């Protein structure tokens, strides 16, 4: 079974600063995906960024980027030029490739990091 660990329950930074959220995971799989989901107070689950394990290049989406270290099983999220609207819970999640049974298991989530952007 997979596990996902987010060791920072809460983080607070000033607007416009850069912040990095940590995530580590444990798996014996070689083919999988990693995700960061944002959950604002509305509790909608919003996909922020996605990384395919077989790709060495780190994923980026505008102000959001990841540092994927496969050997270390680490997947951190960096938010640049943070904005007040970035205030939310952020969940790191793991999913096996469907050919490894990922379709059945779906996502395994970490406990989340509550990110607060201060004005």
């Amino acid at each position, binding site marked *: 079974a997979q596990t996902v660990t987010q060791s920072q329950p809460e983080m607070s930074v000033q607007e416009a600063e850069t912040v990095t959220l940590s995530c580590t995971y444990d798996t014996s799989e070689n083919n999988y*995906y990693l995700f960061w989901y944002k959950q604002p107070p509305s509790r909608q*689950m919003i996909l922020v960024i996605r990384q395919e394990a077989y790709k060495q290049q780190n994923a980026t989406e505008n102000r959001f980027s990841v540092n994927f270290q496969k050997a270390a099983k680490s997947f951190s999220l960096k938010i640049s030029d943070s904005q007040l609207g970035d205030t939310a819970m952020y969940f790191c999640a793991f999913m096996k490739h*469907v050919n490894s049974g990922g*379709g059945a298991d779906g996502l395994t989530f970490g406990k989340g990091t509550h990110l607060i952007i201060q004005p």
Partner: protein
Amino acid sequence: EPEVTQTPSHQVTQMGQEVILRCVPISNHLYFYWYRQILGQKVEFLVSFYNNEISEKSEIFDDQFSVERPDGSNFTLKIRSTKLEDSAMYFCASRAWGEGARDEKLFFGSGTQLSVL
């Protein structure tokens, strides 16, 4: 972007009553899921569904829970006799076929907040 639709957005029920939570997954998706999130806690997997049957279920998904895809579009979660501890946000999600799918990810609905009194 296509959406997963969940109804109702909020359901209040008395302990011991049956509830049915409804979801309309994205039309060409093949995997369907229910997740649960108790307030302030992480999102927990309940069950996955593929090819009209349950693929996998967690320890949470005991005999009081059931899922159905009654008409090829809706995907429902039934809780037969609700308990206070069933109060949570319930998320439905769907996923396209894995091999060759352009976007290998789960699409989430906006959730149903279930309150058991």
